């Protein structure tokens, strides 16, 4: 259980994992639970996962990112369970000798996470209802197509 947590994500701990004197550029990404105009009434999201596959996919994805950006350090944490609006569900940190690789590695990881990491979201609304939503926050009632 290296990549998953049920507690709030500590960005500082991730930064410490990848920082080194040879790495002058660090890019971080935080995904947080939203309550914007498209999510009226959302109070929290419950994240669930195929835990062991998440661990396996994140191990592969971070290895791929390091292959694309040799010398880069990459750390990821995905939070599961009930996450209130405004708190992070995922944090990714990539540090490299120069900024271009740091941005590239960080972006690569989040894009692959969105495509490949088996995590699901149930939106909890102020009116007491709960609904499974897809990556864009739309209810997943209609049968999804196979990718």
């Amino acid at each position, binding site marked *: 259980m290296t990549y998953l947590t049920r507690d709030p994500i500590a960005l500082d701990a991730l930064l410490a994992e990848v920082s080194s004197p040879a790495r002058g550029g660090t890019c971080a990404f935080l*995904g947080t639970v939203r309550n914007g105009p498209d999510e009226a009434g959302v109070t929290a999201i419950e994240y*669930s*996962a*195929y835990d*062991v*596959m*998440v661990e*396996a*996919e994140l191990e592969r994805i971070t290895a791929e990112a390091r292959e694309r950006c040799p010398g880069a350090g990459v750390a990821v944490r*995905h939070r599961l369970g009930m996450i209130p609006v405004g708190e992070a*569900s*995922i944090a990714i940190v990539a540090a490299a000798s120069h900024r271009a690789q740091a941005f590239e590695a960080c972006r690569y990881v*989040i894009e692959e*996470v*969105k*495509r*490949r*990491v*088996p*995590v*699901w*979201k*149930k939106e909890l609304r102020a009116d007491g209802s709960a609904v*499974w*939503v*897809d*990556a864009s926050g739309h209810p*997943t009632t209609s*049968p*999804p*197509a*196979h*990718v």
Partner: protein
Amino acid sequence: MPFAPPSGTIRVRFFARYAELVGRAEAAVSVPLPATVGDVVRRVREQLPGACDIPERPLTAVNLRHVKLDASVRDGDEVALLPPIAGG
């Protein structure tokens, strides 16, 4: 004695909305071998109450890796039926 084709037992796992549809997190499914992931999905949708609401072509993984429906399965494999991914 009639010829009996070899069969395999597949551990099928359900997640999120699919687990709610079938009311369980996993099932052991027996299929004649050789078989594909698609064969396992078909068997699940025919045999398990509630599973007919799982799409005919869901996302699937075998032994923790994403696969297409034409991937083959062996006795003892773990096949997961995955609702649309919403990680991150």
